């Protein structure tokens, strides 16, 4: 209330709404495209997920997902879309942090950065474990 910064909470709400919408739209488009490829090629195959076997090797790492995507592997394209979907709320935190910097709100800039750090730690530990 005290500060009359040019960048206001309503601007941030607008941008965050836009990011969420855009992120979902882009990732879903990618998922649907991958789904079409996958169903077209493997629609008649038998699906069995009764026992946990992880995921196929050709999508086993970010690098492999990208390589297989270029080869138009349906599952790889879907996985890329899902990665983009997971990135959407993270991107939202990044933009909120930028918004708080513009509002000159130090406390909430810090809070946003802490949230990002928790996610980064989670990302790094997930790979090791």
């Amino acid at each position: 209330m005290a500060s009359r910064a040019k960048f206001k909470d309503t601007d941030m709400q607008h941008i965050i709404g836009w990011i969420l919408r855009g992120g979902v739209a882009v990732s879903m488009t990618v998922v649907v495209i991958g789904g079409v490829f996958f169903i077209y090629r493997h629609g008649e195959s038998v699906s069995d997920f009764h026992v946990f076997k992880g995921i196929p090797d050709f999508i086993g790492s970010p690098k492999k997902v990208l390589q297989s995507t270029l080869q138009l592997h349906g599952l790889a394209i879907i996985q890329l879309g899902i990665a983009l979907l997971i990135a959407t709320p993270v991107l939202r935190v990044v933009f909120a942090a930028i918004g708080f910097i513009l509002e000159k709100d130090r406390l909430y800039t810090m809070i946003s950065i802490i949230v990002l750090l928790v996610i980064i730690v989670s990302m790094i530990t997930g790979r090791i474990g």
Partner: protein
Amino acid sequence: MSVILFTIIIVIGAYFAGLLGSLTGLGGGFIIIPLLTLVLHVDIHYAIGGSLVSVIATSSGAAAAYVKEGITNIRIGMFLEIATTAGAFTGAILAVYVPTTYIAVLFGVILIFSAIMSLQKKAEHILREQSPLVKRLKLGGTYPVDGEMVEYGVSNVVGGFFTMLFAGVISGLLGIGSGALKVLAMDSIMRIPFKVSTTTSNFMIGVTAAASAVVYFQRGYIHPAIAMPVVIGVLLGAVSGSKILVQATSSNWLRWTFAVIVTLISIQMIYNGVTGKI
């Protein structure tokens, strides 16, 4: 079962999960996981992975609409996300070590709790006074009531924060949004107006789920053949749901239908967990 039939069944089930999830503010996981494990006999780890993805889609899809309405309190959300993301990370790590039997039973228990929570009468209370901590954290806000902006305060920040930590652990462990716990923390403990609580809960669910999804993604719990129909169905359902909520508050029959369905599903999950079928 053929891939195409498997995909179609999940899309339809996920549509209803997304619809109910956004109408009740509880996320879509409570239908996705039982559908995948009980009906389609999918391993619970894949189910949790697929559900987490659906939770992110539901939250982001609906939150985009609410944020623009100006109901969501971004500061409350951001502050409490410290607790939920830290909890979600812990939960995702725990999920590797906790036997699936316990996960299934815990899932059922949380579901019953969600059903009870959803039946409670939600009085729209507005807190006027603000403690020094609340002022320091700038948690109070305004939200539209009948076209006018009304100011509200927040109480018991510490209690709310710790409940959110727990909500995060449950979310990470079970692959659900744990919206019921988030609404409990904000509505009952922090005394935030109900409409603000539900929309802010929805807003937080995506980031919370992302914190554990990055762990699941790398461990191979998120299988694209399952996640694809889940995410498409849920998103279509969430879009339908958010349109209904913005126009009118959820009616009584909807809450009762939801509570009955959820209780039946919970009993199934607990039963299958105890007998070791999951």
